[in-house]
């Protein structure tokens, strides 16, 4: 596990540099075992930084989510770097953003954290519902150790592990300036069993499955706002002329919203799992993204967020692309 003092020392050294504006990391949450993003602007604030299996957020989204105010006349825009802590899955978001020229490599300073798996906070909450905390989670061997109110509880890792970590092929960040720990070998592979299970069902069963989920959707757009790949400044959802997707909430508009969101991520989603984690009505959004991810891998053997110079999927082609479905 990442040693906390080394983490804070590295952070202090980075944030003291002249050319670094802010450092985005994790800090303890306000209740239970939660952790949350931390924004550090000066060396004095590094002592709040932590990294534990509770640090589930993908911080890469904050680089493209920043709302830049117009620079008043006579002032120079602040071009100093943004330092960001990334796990293995998060680092692929940085790579894919840079592959799409969202920003240049020298705009960011990457602190890599080899990750051994994070928890599913809903499972932790369900198992410890009345712990006000602050509680800490650590991983020892193949157990999660939960320390709260002076008590120490051990839980087998499998029971609290997040689903995305069960199939993680990139635990060690693929891009970093500083690596805080030794590399972690990939400990899982992905057989797309959940996607295949759904593919095998009949048309009407599939539609009944998705209709129930989409009818719960309240269109809060947290799945769009949390996604590191959703950074268009004029999102299709907000356009009025023409209005592709109406604002009224019913099965028709909700379905088209989810089709548009997932399709815009075809060949771009790096499976950080945030959209499904944040959905308040628990729509299995990863099952949508992973269907496209699986197709893209099988049909075009393309994997997003691995190589910075890879050409975007849908603006490249090969003469022998499959065309079995074309009359």
């Amino acid at each position, binding site marked *: 596990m990442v040693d906390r003092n080394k983490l804070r020392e590295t952070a202090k050294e980075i944030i003291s540099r002249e050319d670094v504006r802010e450092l985005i990391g994790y800090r303890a949450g306000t209740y239970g075992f939660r952790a949350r993003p931390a924004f550090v602007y000066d060396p004095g604030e590094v002592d709040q930084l932590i990294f534990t299996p509770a640090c589930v957020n993908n911080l890469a989204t904050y680089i493209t989510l920043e709302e830049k105010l117009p620079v008043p006349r006579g002032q120079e825009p602040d071009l100093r770097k943004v330092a960001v802590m990334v796990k293995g899955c998060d680092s692929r978001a940085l790579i894919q953003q840079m592959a799409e020229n969202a920003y240049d490599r020298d705009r960011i300073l990457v602190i890599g954290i080899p990750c051994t798996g994070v928890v599913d906070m809903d499972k932790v909450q369900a198992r410890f519902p009345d712990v006000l905390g602050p509680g800490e989670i650590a991983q020892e061997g193949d157990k999660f150790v939960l320390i709260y109110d002076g008590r120490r509880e051990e839980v087998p890792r499998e029971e609290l592990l997040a689903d995305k970590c069960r199939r993680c092929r990139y635990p060690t960040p693929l891009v970093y300036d500083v690596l805080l720990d030794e590399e972690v070998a990939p400990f899982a592979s992905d057989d797309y069993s959940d996607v295949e299970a759904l593919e095998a069902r009949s048309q009407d069963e599939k539609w009944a499955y998705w209709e129930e989920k989409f009818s719960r959707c309240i269109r809060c757009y947290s799945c769009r706002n949390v996604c590191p790949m959703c950074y268009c400044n004029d999102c299709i959802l907000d356009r009025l002329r023409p209005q592709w997707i109406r604002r009224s909430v019913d099965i028709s508009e909700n379905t088209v919203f989810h089709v548009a969101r997932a399709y815009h991520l075809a060949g771009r989603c790096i499976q950080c799992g945030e959209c499904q984690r944040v959905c308040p009505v*628990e729509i299995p959004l990863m099952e949508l993204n992973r269907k496209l991810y699986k197709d893209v891998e099988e049909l075009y053997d393309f994997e997003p967020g691995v190589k910075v110079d890879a050409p975007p999927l849908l603006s490249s082609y090969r003469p022998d692309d499959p065309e079995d479905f074309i009359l």
Partner: protein
Amino acid sequence: MAAKKLSKEKVGEVLQELSKFRLITPVKSDDVVIFREIADPQEAFLDYGNSTVPPKKVVFPQTETLFRFTLGNPELREKNVEEEGTTVIFGLRPCDARAMSIVDKLFSWDFEDPYYLKRRELTTLVGMACVQPPSINCFCTSLGGSPFGKEGLDVLLVDMGDHYLFQSLTEKGGRLEEMLSSYLEEAPAGEEEKASSMEEEAKAKIIRSIDPQGIPEKLPSLWEHPLWKRVSDSCLGCGICTYLCPTCHCFDVQDEVERGEGRRARMWDSCMFCEYTLHASGHNPRPTRKERTRNRISHKYSYYPKRFDVIACVGCGRCINLCPVNIDILEILEQVVEA
């Protein structure tokens, strides 16, 4: 009105009786609890903490038709809310009912909103007291609410173990009591005292709290305070904290046309979205999420009290539980008190 006894076996029959109205109860969809209209009483799911989406969506639907029209024909056909018929919301929590009474003040202030008020008139609220342990982030007692709160409810059911204590609180509740009289029996003696002692126990179980004293007056003076940037740095600008808040009432009005038929509809909107205050000229008085967070908290804890002298928050804890980045309204308020 004297409290009555409703044994638990009869709840199924009561729901069957009520299903001749539009009966809405908590329902489990996958493992999410939402309020939905049910036809058969088995679907009702009553032992739950609180729902994800508050029952406000029953009286203030997320999408609602204001009027319909046909292109080319100048006549506008107003949507008549009475077509939806009498509604009974069974099994909501006292905090959500109290939230409705807070939002009622806005919709009946000055211009009366015909849709919301008519639907409120047609709806009877049958609440269930919180006897189960509260979620960590419940803080209804800090804002004058209570796990056994009666404000806004027509009937309060208190789970006494093998039966419910049926207390009708309003005139609508009385009518419901008459209608269900065949299922109700006389409450054994001393039940109401037992209920109030249970209330004290439940109140003691509430873990988190805030002292709202002085916050409404102090907030305007903290306009330029750095706490707003600190608390809103990690905000994603999504709509969870507003859509799931039982006292949030902001809406957008848009027109929709389909093959010659059209409607003007209003739908929920969120002050945390950038387009909420974006002018057609491109100017945005609240350009970043810092201003929007400041406005969201100020609206609930300063602007609303200034106009309706009640804090527009009932301490249900949904915005804390479901925020993707754990932005905590109690932490913000503590920083406001300390600032």
